[in-house]
């Protein structure tokens, strides 16, 4: 897969700000128009995505829910410029994505840590690869790790940690450079229910502080409703947008909010979408 290189260099060469220099209010708009994708492998065609149109406002928190295999990860990779779509295009901050977009943080479905680096160094590799000074980010990395409960583990190797702890490391790695766009592919999938709830609360807090545009993929209906400004409900493969549900609930989404009737009604609405498509059957 040949990709134009031009787009890669532009944000990589723009100097990485030192952690304490305040950035202009974070968040970039994302415009997805007519994106479709087909995987071809050994003569087999898999239609993964079918005509996705979506515009995400700067600083918006968008959650995507959909059945397994409907193309959520594919969509994330297309937006991030890691995969060239078969049709359509993506614009981030008004510029067409052609090649990996670098001014973002990504959490993949699996932690993808580097076995040979400690937890702290795995976070700092984000800075290292961008050509920044990891030393300048050390304190910030420590603080973030402590915030997700990994303070004592910063000098351990990834294999010494549980799956959930590794995923939390990956989340910190995606946040360390304070990107204006955050893409998360089922980031809490490997976490236990309690940590998951806490991470959800922390993520909302972080997002409210920084206001980065956030694209959050999940299987959890209530998790989506609890976090998002808008929930995108997708159909089974080939994935299309079935519904877009505006979540009009007050923030922060405290316990009273997530146990309210309106919250339950939003969850019901999404569940019914899935029942209509036979994704959930009783």
């Amino acid at each position, binding site marked *: 897969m040949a990709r134009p290189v031009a787009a*890669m*260099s532009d*944000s*990589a060469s723009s100097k990485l700000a030192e952690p304490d220099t305040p950035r202009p209010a974070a968040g970039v708009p994302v415009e997805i128009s007519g994106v479709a994708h087909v995987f071809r492998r050994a003569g087999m065609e898999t239609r993964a995505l079918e005509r996705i149109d979506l515009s995400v406002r700067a600083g918006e928190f968008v959650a995507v829910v959909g059945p397994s295999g409907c193309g959520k990860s594919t969509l994330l*990779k297309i937006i*991030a410029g*890691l995969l060239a779509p078969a049709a359509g295009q993506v614009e981030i901050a008004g510029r067409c994505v052609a090649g*990996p*977009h*670098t001014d*973002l943080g*990504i959490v*993949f*479905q*699996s932690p*993808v840590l*580097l*076995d*040979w*680096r*400690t937890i702290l*160094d795995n976070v700092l*590799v*984000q800075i*290292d*690869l*961008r*050509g920044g000074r990891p030393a300048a980010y050390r304190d910030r990395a420590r603080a973030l790790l402590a915030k997700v409960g990994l303070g004592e583990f910063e000098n351990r*190797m990834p*294999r*010494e940690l549980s799956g959930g702890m590794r995923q939390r490391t990956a989340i910190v790695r995606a946040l360390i450079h304070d990107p204006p766009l955050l893409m998360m592919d089922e980031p809490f999938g490997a976490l236990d229910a309690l940590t998951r709830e806490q991470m959800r609360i922390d993520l909302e807090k972080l997002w409210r502080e920084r206001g980065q545009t956030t694209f959050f993929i999940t299987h959890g209906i209530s998790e989506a409703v609890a976090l998002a400004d808008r929930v995108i409900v997708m159909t089974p493969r080939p994935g299309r947008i079935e519904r877009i549900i505006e979540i009009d609930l007050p923030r922060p989404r405290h316990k009273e909010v997530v146990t309210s009737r309106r919250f339950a009604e939003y969850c019901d609405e999404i569940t019914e979408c899935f029942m209509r498509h036979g994704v959930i059957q009783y």
Partner: protein
Amino acid sequence: MSGAGASRPLPARILTGLQQRIGMIAAFLMLFLLWEFAVKLFGIKEYLLPPPSKIWSEFLKRQNVVMAGAWTTLTEILGGYVLAVAISIPLAMAIAYSRFVETTIYPVIVFLQIIPKIAIAPLFIIWFGFGLFPKLLIVFLLCFFPVVVSSVAGFKSVDPDVMDFARSTGASPARMFFKIRLPQALPEIFTGLKIGAALSATAAVVAEFVASDRGLGYLLQQYNGQLETPMVFAIIVLLSAIGLAIYYLVEFIERLVIPWHVSQRPTEMTGL
């Protein structure tokens, strides 16, 4: 960066290492004792199976000749091995990163690998004569293929998700290589290096068998021809020791370079 195993003090680690091997050492001692007594008890002729004590005393008598031979052989082994490593790792990189090299040169290498390398040895004598060079070449040839093949596998075995992460940072090709691809390839490269190391001593001896006037392989043939069996045994033991030393040297370097990988391997005593 430090592996978990490296945190204990060195003397303690050597001690537990010895404790783990104490059974093995005892078994070897028993074997030698049994051997010694069996030979005496059944009156086995010396040219058939000499007792360990005889092997040792004969060795001491001629140790100057033998050590000179060992030096020659060691030069061939190390020279050929280093040559193989120096050429095969860059070549593996070229194969892994260039479609062109992969589709042109690599199939040829894979094909050549099938040729029994030892069968070519006599040809080298015709081409390059008697000296050091043809021996280096044979050691090179035997070590070269396993190192190339596993290094190519190593350089290609990058997790696509890790690559996606790296690409999303806009890392330069050099950073991508030194911070991601090379460290990720090292475990497989070392697998090849160890296979090569284990083959190198055999290669040198075979090369000397074919044609030479010095070295342990040459001495082995001489003593064998004169039915000096104790010396034949002495040289076999010495050759084994050299092979083992080289293998463990490579393994030691592996421990230094990739502690994160070594310490997650399930068993420590890997067989040759």
